[in-house]
């Protein structure tokens, strides 16, 4: 099967992926004084902004979240961090083949490495922000529970989902450059369609079940809910929902990879 062959080819290039990811990370902070500290500072500053705006100014003390501004900020941070990983990956992937057009035209190597590198580099950023989040869990007044051990599973599901989406995007954008603009808008819409700044348990949502159903159709909902379960509420992840999300992610991955493979030969002349 070609998919397996392709994956094997990517595996053979794993050293390249590793080097490109580290290049990506180094290049991003090259020339800055604080360097890698920015990976910690960016989420920290974001967290402070969210705490002030949504915790103190808007002050939505819904009991579903915990009732205090601090807890609300923590809740939001649990969602924003993985969301940033997803949306940055998607937006960068849409461009990645064009930016590296020179490589695709002149050097023979599996082009899917480029979106893989994008998603992985953003995963590393996510990992660098994670200690800040873990640090704030006890500070904001939550205790760690053993359910935090399911976190790697949630991350894996998100990785597969993000990668599938990124493969699809990167290949299609070569032919339809409009996707870049569509995507920027789609990501805003998608952000608000995911329980990041609100909770599915909020009272207002219980009154309109149709909205809740729609939100449940969004795979990112269950991935973010997975983070909430592991880190915020401290309960077992919703096995059934996350299982279905994993299946959807795998399907998206296979579909995205097939589209990518199909359009592969057209890249050298179109990018």
């Amino acid at each position, binding site marked *: 099967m070609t998919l397996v062959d392709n994956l094997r080819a990517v595996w053979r290039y794993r050293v390249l992926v590793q*080097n490109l990811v580290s290049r990506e990370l180094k290049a991003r902070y090259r020339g800055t004084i604080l360097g890698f500290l920015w990976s910690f500072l960016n989420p920290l500053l974001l967290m402070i902004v969210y705490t002030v705006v949504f915790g103190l100014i808007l002050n939505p003390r819904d009991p579903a979240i915990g009732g205090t501004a601090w807890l609300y900020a923590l809740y939001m941070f649990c969602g924003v961090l993985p969301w940033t990983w997803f949306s940055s990956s998607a937006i960068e992937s849409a461009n990645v083949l064009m930016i590296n057009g020179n490589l695709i035209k002149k050097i023979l190597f599996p082009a899917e490495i480029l979106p893989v590198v994008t998603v992985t580099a953003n995963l590393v950023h996510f990992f660098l922000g994670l200690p800040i989040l873990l640090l704030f869990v006890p500070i904001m007044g939550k205790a760690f529970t053993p359910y935090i051990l399911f976190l790697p599973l949630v991350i894996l599901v998100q990785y597969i989902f993000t990668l599938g989406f990124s493969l699809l995007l990167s290949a299609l954008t070569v032919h339809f450059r409009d996707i870049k603009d569509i995507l920027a808008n789609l990501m805003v819409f998608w952000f608000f369609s995911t329980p990041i700044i609100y909770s599915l348990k909020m009272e207002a949502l219980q009154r309109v079940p149709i909205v809740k159903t729609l939100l449940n159709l969004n795979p990112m909902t269950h991935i973010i809910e997975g983070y909430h379960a592991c880190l915020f509420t401290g309960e077992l992840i919703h096995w059934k929902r996350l299982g279905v999300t994993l299946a959807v992610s795998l399907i998206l991955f296979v579909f995205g990879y097939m589209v990518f493979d199909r359009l592969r030969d057209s890249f050298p002349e179109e990018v």
Partner: protein
Amino acid sequence: MVAIDVDGVSRVYQKYSARHRFQTFKSALVRGDLFRSLRADEVVAALDDVSFKVEKGRAFGVIGENGSGKSTLLKLVAGIAKPTAGRVTVQGKVSALIELGAGFHPEISGRENVYINGIMLGLSKKEIQQKFDEIVRFAELEGFIDAPVKTYSSGMYMRLGFSVAINVNPDILLIDEVLAVGDAAFIPKCLDRIDDFRRRKKTILFVSHDLNTVEKVCDRVVWLKGGKVMTIGDPKRVIDAYLQDVAAKQEESFARAREERQAVPQTFEEERRENRWGLREVEIKKVTLRNLAGQEKHVFAPDEGMAIELEVEAYSKIKDFVFGIGVFNSQGISCYGTNTGLEDFEPQLIQGEGRVACRIERLNLVNGTYYLDIAVHKKDGYPYDYHRNLYSFLVTSTLKDVGVTRLPHRWEFSPGIQMKPPRKE
């Protein structure tokens, strides 16, 4: 053993971007084989039924004008592009020097770029570690290897790219015109490396416009024109055939330029102001350039000679007249000038139509474009009809000497000086 087998290969490119053909996402995804459904007027054949084999250990040259399909051919052999029809079979590890330093990232150091570029070209991390010092030394970048690549000059960039690519140690090396950027010291180093490759019985596919290097490096040469194979064979023979074709093309464009000039009728005043003056008591009605065999030409080889033929007409009986020619090179330097007066011809009478020819036995001019002054005037210089730089011709030859004119000469060496004579052609 055959290292590269190109069998009936064609490659078709779309004239326009594929985007306008994709009406919907569905059509793009469902019909993966878009290329075959294209209409003929939307495609360009970069290669058309090209076949050749390269034996292992041989150096094979590819020559042709811009747009003749050379680079496409290289990309097909490298596997970067796929043939539309036909088959390319390659035995062994290929390294393509298509664009040096293609994968370099400007923000990170030369060192890190060497690693990433090396891995992309198929080296393992360990191999790069072993060869790293050699790569840096060859590129002459010992002092700069930890600086970001964006601070490199284009020459440094190129040297590092070449150094990495040549150290990949492939079985088959593809070289596309990459030596054009090196300086006088680096190019011989590169050529040495290429020679070294040949000695180690590696296969080389070499694309270049530098015909002298092609002739030196290659065992066999293919000449591509418009995507088709014109000739394959001995370098000397193929290169000569190619040069003849180029000369014929230059001839054509010269003739066209001349026609265009004639097609625009100029008023007497304009001509006088610009490049023709005199009251035309004797008129030069037509000037034709031929070789001594009588063919009308604009591109000359030195040993063809040249005949400048004038058709003149005198509108009354005139007893004082001189015919003259002047040859100027493209910088406006007078290379040669003479007239019948300087050569002590005594004019007697000219009346009605007549013909004058100046036959030059050997065109002792170096390669270049030349302009002709043709005039008929009185002995005291009063012009009847003066044509200033109105005619031009081109001299081409395989000789590379410089200057204004070619002085007939030969070299002699005392026995203590050992000098191998040039290959007789």
